């Protein structure tokens, strides 16, 4: 790695001031797990890193808001979320997804804000958060804004954030009565990045579905909602509906080929995993013996 300068601002506002809008060689660093990989590979050569490690401790806390929403500071580590009682109560699907997210050491260091801002399509939390309807509050030099996580990603490793904007907080509406699941499918080894992630959140009453959100990730350039498949689920849950929804999702998700598998194969995975994810959310047994 090449030498660079490290700035250690004491507040998030100060950090934003140090970032600047135009210099791509200046970037914020929090846990740094993803950034270190990019720097070691030489794909990112910073002149200055703006460390977020000494900003206000409030940005590392997870609390329960007035309306039961989870308010997760951007600097909260992924492992703090995994073990947070508020998360276990308010959105158990998040805690469960974290268990197979990368590995313990990464989760100990990586932060929620960094995880989202990195915009690697193979990340596990974005599909879950989109399914739950989460938003991020973003601070910038001139204005602050709230962005649904669904609208955060512009493409492959790309967000809608400006260089001098920082995610301050993640706001997750209470899971409430919604049934949710996240299934991760790996094709090269058990501890691999996902070839496909499927998150679902369903507002149901028996077999009736009031609202369904499905999010496909990893097999696509960015997390994607197959809205036609979601609409099909509103026909009410049955084997035939699940099959149609899986097929529709495979058709519309924009699956791409990569080292995890061809697009044709991953479309099949989408077909199967959308169905399995809905069954998992609703705790409907599948033909597959579930292995923990």
């Amino acid at each position, binding site marked *: 790695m090449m030498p660079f300068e490290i700035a250690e601002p004491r507040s998030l506002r100060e950090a934003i001031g140090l970032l600047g809008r135009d210099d791509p060689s200046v970037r914020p660093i929090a846990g740094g797990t993803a950034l270190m990989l990019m720097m070691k590979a*030489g794909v990112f050569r910073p002149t200055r890193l703006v460390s977020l490690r000494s900003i206000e401790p409030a940005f590392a806390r997870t609390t329960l808001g007035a309306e039961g929403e989870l308010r997760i500071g951007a600097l909260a580590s992924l492992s703090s979320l995994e073990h947070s009682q508020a998360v276990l109560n308010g959105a158990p699907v998040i805690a469960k997804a974290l268990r197979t997210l990368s590995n313990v050491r990464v989760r100990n260091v990586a932060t929620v804000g960094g995880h989202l801002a990195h915009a690697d399509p193979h990340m596990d939390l974005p599909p879950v958060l989109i399914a739950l309807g989460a938003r991020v509050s973003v601070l910038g030099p001139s204005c602050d804004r709230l962005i649904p996580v669904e609208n955060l990603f512009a493409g492959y490793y790309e967000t809608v954030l400006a260089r001098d904007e920082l995610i301050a907080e993640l706001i997750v509406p209470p899971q409430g009565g919604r049934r949710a699941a996240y299934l991760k499918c790996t094709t090269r*080894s058990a501890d691999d990045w996902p070839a496909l992630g499927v998150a679902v959140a369903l507002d149901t009453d028996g077999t009736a579905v009031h609202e369904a959100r499905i999010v496909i990730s990893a097999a696509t350039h960015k997390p994607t909602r197959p809205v036609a498949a979601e609409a099909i689920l509103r026909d009410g849950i049955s084997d035939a509906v699940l099959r149609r929804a899986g097929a529709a999702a495979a058709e519309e998700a924009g699956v791409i*080929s990569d080292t995890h598998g061809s697009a*044709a194969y991953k479309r*099949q995975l989408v077909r199967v995993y959308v169905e399995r994810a809905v069954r998992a959310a609703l705790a409907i047994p*599948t*033909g597959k013996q579930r292995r923990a």
Partner: protein
Amino acid sequence: MKTTTKETSQVGRSIPRLEAREKVTGRAEYIHNMRLPGMLYGKIFRSTLAHGRIRSIDVSAAAAVAGVHRVITAEDVKTVIPDPYYGPVFHDQPILAMDKVRHVGEPVAVVLASDPHVAEQAAQLIAADYEELPAVFDEVAATGSPVIVHEVLRPAGMFPDFKDLAGRKNTNLHLDFKLRRGDVETAFAAADHVFEHTFHTRQIMHTPLEPIVSLAESTDSSVTLYTASQMPSVVRMEIARLLAWPENRVRVRTAFLGGGFGAKTYIKVEALVTVCSLLTHLPVKISLTMEEQFYTITKHANTLRLKSGVTKDGRITSRLCEVWWNGGAYADIGPRLTQKSGFTAAGPYDIENVHIDSYAVYTNLPPAAGLRGFGIPTLTWAYESHTDLIARALNIDPLEFRRRNLLREGRPQATGTIMKDAAIDAVLERLAERMDWHAPFDRGSGVIRRGRGIAIGFKASISNTTSVAIVNACGDGSCSVYCNTVDMGQGSDTALAQIAAEALNIPAETIKVIHADTDVTPYDMGTLGSRSTFHMGQAVKLAAEDARDKLLALAAELGLPPETTPIAQIFRKKFGMQAGNVVGIGTFNPKSTQPDHATGLAENITPFWMIGGTGAEVEVDTETGHVRVTRLVNIADVGTPINPGIVDSQLSGAAMMQFGCTMSEGMEFDAGQVTNASLADYKIPGIRDMPDQIINEVVEARQDTGPYGAKGVGETGTFGVSPAITNAIHDAVGVRLTRLPVTPEAVYRALRAANNDALEEE
């Protein structure tokens, strides 16, 4: 002579490894950890082209970087070594690329700096200009390709049987091993059935977690190499040959190796650090990154074609095997592998007519050599898949079909060598028992289908090699073993201590095994091919017996009761104080015969046989192609185990390594560049990939010529794994995978194709 605490026999005890404490406290010594005062770090600048003529190399920008000590190219190398080509079979590999580059990742220059970050950054400023040449990558296409990787073959002379290849020109085929037994064509014509299948494997990387690393320090007249090498004696000889120095001016030292598996054999970066140190008069260390290892040494990709003639009652009467080994750009030990493993390509079966062609081929890919099994796991995969397919086609139980054709004790193997101390039938029968082969089997339901498969393989040991050991008894009765066997995780320090302890009648825990330092430790061919327990074990036993006999004679001469006097007391009586040494020496060089050049036949092809069988039970997800191995049973003939606990972990370790080669590992290339050269994209098995259950068992056996009945074990667990799994998949869902690795996509595609509903390509 008597010692104090011996209670049980030293051989057959499952004692913890002698170095266990250092390893769990992080204090074990690896070359990876070494630093010397004033040391420079070398960073290699590598070719980005698979095949090209070097027009120019511009190192000026790199040399100008503050902190760069020197940049070295082939021109500098030639000032120290005028003919800087190395290799165990052919002198084909330049220390740094000369004239041509032959694969992506070939070393072209090296930057030296005391800060490794500076060396790394400066290396990126080097610019090489090439005239791009057409490249050849496929092992079958390369045999007839106009693209020639090496214009002329230069045999190294280390192995006398390759001398006749000298001067062969304009061919990528650098070794063609032939075996001709009987007449396969006539037998095919007479057979009731003839079956033919073709199989393919991809290149694999050894992935030792301690990447390849060497450090050299030199004076004008000597060089000391600290290197993570499995072959200190051979490194010494080859460096001495390159420098035209006597061997005794080259000192090679090793430490524990963080894994080897065949990657750390012969010359890797030893010659380069030696030259760098001689040019700078400073110590120079080169540590490869994980990525660089993918460009340094690999296991061959193969194409294998098998054809068998079979009678209607299930006797194999003839077998033809054609095997192409993709050796990459430099032969390394590949030709030896092509021959030594090639002669077993028809499998452990008693077949009247055998025809084998085994071809070592140059291509423009990274070099390939042995990886835990020296080609045998690949051959076993092909012949045991083929055998299983035949049994299924004839509707004969796969176990029964193997029984009918098994190569039994006293029968000639394809080379004509009579099988001896090879428990092939015992391994097969115990495998059947541990698999509960005749019990009812749950075949699954719904989308999950279950199946099981078995496979058995065998391997000849490396032959005509030598091990020398010294056992030194000190004045207080403590003993050390001096040898060049390298403990890379296989537990050789412990096993050799147990062997010496048995002969000396003292506890193994009290013996120290001195790590290789060629100034003091004697010659050994190398730690590879599962040869150490047998070869070095026997040398250590001879050395210990020699020391023991000398001590007994000394005791008798001093009038002490020889069988009961402690060693220390013998010395005290002799010298009047704690003083002196008794040194025993042992040399072991088992003889065998080389295969006849025209027929491949030999009456004594190997000092011993290794036999391994594996059974697998799998669950296949028919909607996604995911395969879960739920049970893996490994049965082996290891002779009499020296340390049963370590033998057991060697078997599952070997099996899991081949499990990786079966399920997930395979290098992928784009114009010769490895596109998955990192552990992020090249997935070796992790703890969650491991089968739910692994069972290992060694059969009752004894290698009469081995130390206390033992034979080698490091590779045996690999043999049957791949075919056991693909046979089990076939059993579960009726499809045959003929390419490794068996990815979920490959399985799913096969299922769709079998259903006449092939999945589109993209």
